């Protein structure tokens, strides 16, 4: 295995490990909002690492460009998607887990928020 292959392998394996972490987190966390933390952060980083590893393994300018585009797109949109689902779940009245210490959003006057 060449040096490039070793770097690519390390990246791919760490990316996959993070993706598995995200999937396990979906089961372990007690609350919808906590699960959203698990689904957005390690999944995005895992995707980025794996795709960089794949770009190194494949080579070729067109492959690398496409993979970089996917990474950029995922990093920009994953937080937005997580935020929107979180906001919707809160407004729909999803129960917070029993570990929650403080909920300051409940005190917010209704005129402040966007429709």
């Amino acid at each position, binding site marked *: 295995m060449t040096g490039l292959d070793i770097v690519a392998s390390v990246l791919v*394996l760490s990316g996959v490990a993070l993706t598995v972490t995200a999937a396990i987190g*979906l089961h372990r966390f007690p609350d919808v909002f906590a699960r959203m933390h698990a*689904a957005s952060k390690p999944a995005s980083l895992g995707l980025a690492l794996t795709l960089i590893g794949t770009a190194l*393994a494949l080579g070729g300018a067109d492959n690398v460009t496409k*993979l970089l585009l996917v990474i950029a797109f995922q990093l920009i949109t994953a937080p937005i*998607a997580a935020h*929107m*689902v979180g906001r919707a*779940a809160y407004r*729909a009245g999803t129960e917070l887990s029993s570990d929650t210490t403080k909920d300051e959003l409940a005190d917010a006057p209704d005129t402040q928020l966007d429709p």
Partner: protein
Amino acid sequence: MNIVTAIALGAVTFAALLALARLFRPGSLADRVVALDTLLTTAVVGIAIYSARIGDGVYLDVLLVTSLVAFVGTVTMARYIERRGA
């Protein structure tokens, strides 16, 4: 490299099965939306590893389309949840 991609594909399959199990577990609609988004992201990772394994960039366009569809689908479901309740 082939051994690495084989291990990676096995792990990705495990992650995908976990996400799929979360989809079926009783919970709110928001839970299922998050599970579906994670499942699609895991699928993108799996396709990328497979592309690295076969050494051909044929399936890379699939990655972008899947990411786009996952994002649009998740946001649409979020708006539905806001209106109709989880």
